[in-house]
């Protein structure tokens, strides 16, 4: 039997309320200040470096995002973002549902004529839009500063690449937002949810990149014939790539590589035969770069959806009462 009424009635109301909560919260302000501070630092560094190097570069503008100064090796803007975007997303999502439990507002709100769908989806959407607003502002800030500091306007293709990069940053943050919300549903205590999400984030960011090669070597031991030549075993390397792509951070950094460095021709291992006829060092057109990173992009978006759906199912089955 179909249930009556739309699952989306009340969605707009929940969305607007959550959005205004996010935008006025002290937590958001602190996170945003941190991100802006980091961005200013890394972009300043990049600008100095670009001014010093005289090498001609057709994609000078994109270097703003990726370059860092040689004598002060602070992380570049993208590495900062790869680090802080998840942190912001987790900061917005870790207490989305369990705070309604602890404030004892959940049963009162669910006694209004709305479905649980509207509450959860409204919260997710509000988090995602908050993140988008911050990232768009940050992105415009970097580009505006770049124009002022470098004294040259960005080309059309550079802008297009930077824009796809912006969208992917939002998708990347979306994965962590969905994960944080999932844990906020599963764990009744906001502190537990925050710790578990941060634990997963640390694991994926720091530990997994070291663990993937070890696991790959354990499953497919390197061939001594390749080892004798000082080469990696192709099968082992492939498994390692597959394993490391479980982490959204790997996917994001591969997307960044493809988009912001147009000379990137492949992500992951490449065979010599595939390089036949290639002019190494020449940039690819935008469409080719995007096609190269499509699996990673789809991976991030699919990850977001899958995590949200798991949270949705758990939330639907959860008892209102503690």
């Amino acid at each position, binding site marked *: 039997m179909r*249930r009556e009424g739309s699952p989306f009635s009340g969605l707009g109301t929940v969305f607007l309320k959550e959005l205004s909560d996010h935008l006025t919260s002290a937590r958001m302000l602190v996170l945003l200040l941190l991100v802006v501070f980091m961005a200013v630092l890394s972009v300043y560094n990049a600008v100095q470096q670009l001014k010093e190097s005289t090498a001609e570069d057709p994609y000078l503008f994109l270097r703003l995002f990726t370059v860092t100064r040689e004598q002060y090796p602070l992380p570049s803007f993208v590495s900062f973002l790869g680090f802080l975007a998840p942190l912001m997303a987790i900061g917005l999502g870790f207490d989305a549902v369990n705070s309604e439990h602890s404030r*004892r507002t959940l049963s009162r709100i669910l006694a*209004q004529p709305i479905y649980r769908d509207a509450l959860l989806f409204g919260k997710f959407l509000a988090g995602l839009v908050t993140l988008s607003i911050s990232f768009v502002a940050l992105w415009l800030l970097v580009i505006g500063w770049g124009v002022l500091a470098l004294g040259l306007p960005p080309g059309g293709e550079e802008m297009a690449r930077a824009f796809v990069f912006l969208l992917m940053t939002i998708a990347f943050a979306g994965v962590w937002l969905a994960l944080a919300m999932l844990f906020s549903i599963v764990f009744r205590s906001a502190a537990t949810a925050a710790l578990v999400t941060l634990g997963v984030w640390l694991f994926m960011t720091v530990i997994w990149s070291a663990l993937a090669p070890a696991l790959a070597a354990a499953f497919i031991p390197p061939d001594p014939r390749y080892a004798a030549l000082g080469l990696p075993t192709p099968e082992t390397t492939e498994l390692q790539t597959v394993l490391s792509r479980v982490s959204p951070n790997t996917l994001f950094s591969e997307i960044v590589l493809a988009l912001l460095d147009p000379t990137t021709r492949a992500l992951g291992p490449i065979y010599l035969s595939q390089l036949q006829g290639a002019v190494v060092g020449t940039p690819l057109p935008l469409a080719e770069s995007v096609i190269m990173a499509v699996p990673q992009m789809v991976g991030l978006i699919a990850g977001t959806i899958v995590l949200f759906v798991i949270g949705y199912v758990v939330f639907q089955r959860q008892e209102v009462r503690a």
Partner: protein
Amino acid sequence: MSTPVIEARHLTKRYGGATAVNDVSFTIAPGEIFGLLGPNGAGKTTTILMLLGLTEITGGEARVLDHNPVREPLAVKRRVGYLPDAVGFYDNLTAADNLRYTARLIGIAADEREDRIAAALARVELSDVADHRVGTFSRGMRQRLGLAEIVMKNASIAILDEPTSGLDPQATLELLAIIRALKHDGVAVLLSSHLLDRVQSVCDRVALFQGGRIVLIGTVGELGRQVLGGGYAVDVEAHGEGLAERLRQIPGVQGVEEPAPGRLRLLADRDVRPDAAAAIVNAGGRLTRLSVEDPNLETIYTRYFSNQREQHAA
């Protein structure tokens, strides 16, 4: 009796192997105040959540305003107001903003929203703190704000879970006055409580819960006769000679006790106060107090559970 607004037929709720609510049936008429009483964990809140469609029903059926809360939860929730146990609000928002949020969720049209919020806040006497943040509110004020939400909603049924628990006597009285006013407007009220004397003063009928079942249901008077037996206890304070003997001769009096000098307690099968007064005055005694003990929920409750224990022990 007119068509009931709430009808529960053999409602059952099981969590895994544990049965929280077991074959519960009752009906509530429009404008009636119905009390669910019982110790904590007896299944009162679970019953309420099933009526609201907030938890799934394992067995039996519920009809609320002729809707099925499982299949048509929105239709039910549009017309039923719910005040959860220890209701919570968004502390960083003002009282009016909290109501505005709910008003939007309910779908009250923008042009009447403000009027209805103002009227509801006035009704529960929170108008002067409408723009204060709820974080500064006392528990009693929060409960009243919860009732304001129900008033604003124009609900036909108000379901109140432990509305008076944790309130001081003054706040309790104010809250009960608002509940009576709701009844006056034709709203049916279902309330759960373990505070018996307070509940007794507002409820038309009560259901006594124990271990997930309704063990007794009816008006307080009916329950009194069922549990305490048909007897009336009349307390007399009078001074005079041989009063006990005189009183014992009144038809219907089964026994006279004298717990203290000048104080007598008559056990009778009817209200014998007029005869007792006449007898004392005729005997030349000085009558200072004459009262009949109403069947009291507290007494019924205590007696019922002690009877149960005795039966178990036997």
